[in-house]
């Protein structure tokens, strides 16, 4: 007997994952609202003020991160957006794949990417030295002693 267009997933997954879906859902909304502010602020400062995209260079970034305000802003944005996007990707994977190895691998990849990038990004922001020794002075922010 041929049947086509069968549902992708044959049996309802046994385990329940507690309130995970609920909190994920709530998180998407809360982070979404905050991200609107953070991302629009980010885009405004980076692309709209002054010369826009042409102003961006090492000096520009260094100048921003010298200010703890922008450090917090960007780290917050980093965390919220990655987790938001990562969870969104998880939803997408859930929708288009059936439980099994492929799904596990995809979700694992998303999770790894999110964790690695959050760690990397956070480290970069907080361990960032705006005036690395031995760099050409014209590349550095204006407040560096070398500049």
């Amino acid at each position: 007997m041929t049947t086509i267009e069968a549902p992708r997933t044959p049996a309802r997954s046994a385990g329940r994952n507690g309130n995970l879906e609920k909190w994920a859902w709530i998180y998407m909304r809360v982070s979404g609202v905050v991200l609107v502010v953070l991302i629009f602020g980010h885009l405004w400062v980076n692309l709209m003020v002054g010369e826009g995209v042409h102003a961006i260079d090492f000096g520009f970034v260094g100048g921003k991160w010298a200010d703890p305000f922008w450090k917090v802003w960007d780290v917050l944005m980093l965390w919220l957006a990655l987790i938001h996007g990562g969870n969104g990707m998880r939803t997408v994977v859930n929708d288009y794949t059936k439980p099994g190895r492929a799904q596990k691998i995809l979700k694992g990849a998303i999770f790894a990417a999110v964790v690695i990038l959050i760690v990397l990004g956070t480290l970069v922001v907080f361990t960032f030295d705006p005036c690395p020794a031995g760099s050409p002075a014209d590349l550095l922010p204006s407040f560096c002693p070398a500049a």
Partner: protein
Amino acid sequence: MSTATLEADAPAPEIEAPKPFTVTFIIRRFDPDTDAEARWQDFDVEMYATDRILDALHKIKWEQDGSLTFRRSCAHGVCGSDAMRINGRNRLACKTLIKDLDITKPIYIEAIKGLPLEKDLIVDMEPFFQSFREVQPFLQSATAPEPGKERVQSVAQRAIFDDTTKCILCAACTSSCPVFWTDGQYFGPAAIVNAHRFIFDSRDDQAKVRLDILNDQEGVWRCRTTFNCTEACPRGIEVTKAIAEVKQAVMRGRA
């Protein structure tokens, strides 16, 4: 007076009878005994503007091809047998009139999506009813009413869940939901609608159990508010709104 043969002595019609016109239907056929895959087949049918799609299917079955297979019963939109995709949207064949469609182009008819196709316009409804049954769609109350008396419920309490009592389990909503197509495991809007009907019934006190069931990975959170369900519902139930209310109730932890 010979009323029994009324038609015979009805006065000759002065106004001209409406003329039928030819409408082309392109129907997605699938015969499990012979076809490996579904195929499209055209039929030309003489129709009147006030005819329903169901009339067209009947005309085809009765006059052209007896093997065309579909479900139907009541023919006026209350039994939920004949949900199908008409010009790419889920509709009841018995509630869709020719005059409401653009007949300059052929009308496409195919089975609803996301449930296993069995034959022509018939799909296997079992997974759909399974989800329905899983939300415990029946009144559960710990306290017994006074013997021989009804439980008291105010007009306002009754009104809260009125909308979702209208459901005829036609599956038009569930099979229009993009999330359901990709993942047949999602409970689907119809099951949530029927859970809503009891969650918000003041006489029931097992709302918590149903909310727990729907707090599942395949439960309410799966809904991405695409509104296809609301637009497909032949009973005019505000399905997405009902789902939103259930989401709120899950967050609150009670109805």
